[in-house]
């Protein structure tokens, strides 16, 4: 119980830290923040429920007015802005990513995490994000989708990195992935 709370809090802090740290580049000099990488990682490492809790906890703190999003953004304005759908979609994205790795048993933990990140962190997140953009800007869903589609290559890269990180994690600390085959699974439910 206490450990679960601590893990949820630490991963929420980790998602925040990944957006506030300027030094980490994701390669190719693309100016993308690593925060959605943190969301994918939270789902892939902690699983559906705790991953969603971590992302949800962070969004709650953002709503309370803390500048924890990339570039020090935060506050209630995040949830009325054109990107509100993405903000609200983070917990769902982490949940779906976690659900994928928990339910779809693949031999490679990294492959499962990467595919889960594509499904949760890209497919589901962009559906929610584009819907939010369509509502706020009054455009149709396909038009809104075309506006955000430029960010998909960057997010595919992040899903790939999530896969590689989880693969490495499974090698150096197999016990950290509760959902992974062969890992200890007892007593880790929140």
């Amino acid at each position, binding site marked *: *119980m206490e450990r679960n709370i601590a893990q949820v809090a630490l991963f929420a802090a980790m998602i925040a830290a990944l957006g506030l*740290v300027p030094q980490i580049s994701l390669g190719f000099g693309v100016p993308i923040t690593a925060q959605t990488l943190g969301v994918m990682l939270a789902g892939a490492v902690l699983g559906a429920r705790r991953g969603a809790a971590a992302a949800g906890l962070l969004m*709650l703190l953002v709503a309370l*007015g803390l500048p924890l999003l990339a570039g020090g953004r935060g506050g209630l304005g995040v949830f009325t802005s054109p990107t509100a759908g993405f903000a609200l979609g983070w917990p769902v994205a982490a949940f779906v990513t976690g659900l994928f790795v928990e339910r779809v048993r693949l031999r490679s933990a990294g492959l499962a995490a990467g595919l889960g990140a594509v499904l949760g962190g890209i497919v589901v997140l962009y559906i929610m994000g584009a819907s939010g953009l369509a509502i706020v800007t009054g455009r149709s869903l396909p038009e809104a989708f075309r506006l955000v589609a430029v960010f998909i290559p960057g997010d595919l890269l992040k899903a790939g*990195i999530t896969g590689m990180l989880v693969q490495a994690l499974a090698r150096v600390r197999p016990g950290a992935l509760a959902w992974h085959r062969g890992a200890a699974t007892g007593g880790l439910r929140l």
Partner: protein
Amino acid sequence: MISLTSPVRTRAQDWPAGAKLAALCLVSTGLFLARGLPVQLGALAVVAVLYALPGPVFLRAGLRSLRVVLPFVVVLLVWHGVLGDLRGGLVVVLRMVVLVALANLVTMTTALEELVDLLSWLLTPLRRLGLRTQPLELAIPLVLRFTPVLVARAGRLAEAWRARSRRRPGWQLILPMTLLALDDADHVGEALRARGGALPPLDDD
């Protein structure tokens, strides 16, 4: 950590947080329902006055946090201009700016403690249903405490990287960050348990 609350004291800081939040919800819904250009222009004027009243320092801070919508303003105006519907675009852009500005206004004039109290009050029905909200109240300070710790640690890892490589610090740093965060979680979990656990006895509330 930098705060998003106002650098100067305003009268709105004395108003109850719940009332401000309720007003924000009402006005936001209203602006979505009212589609006319005059309504949106009027709303913008009112918001501009609200931002200007507490003085130039407040106005500057407010405008700074509004910069994030600027790209959307440009894209939408160009888009609508190309489609030949500049008036419709103006309505959408005005509504967007007013919505974000109003929400930021609530954030700027409300202390974090007030919002945490409000959150706790909003969760009362859940507690009545038997759901325990103490884990949430425990997790919030943990995130606040550990975010700067993790940022500083990422900085140190990046420095160590630069000492060894001429390439820019890359995503590989996230692996040690994750491992250390998991270790921290174990330690914090143990410490919490040693101090009596996350939950008080059931008959406490």
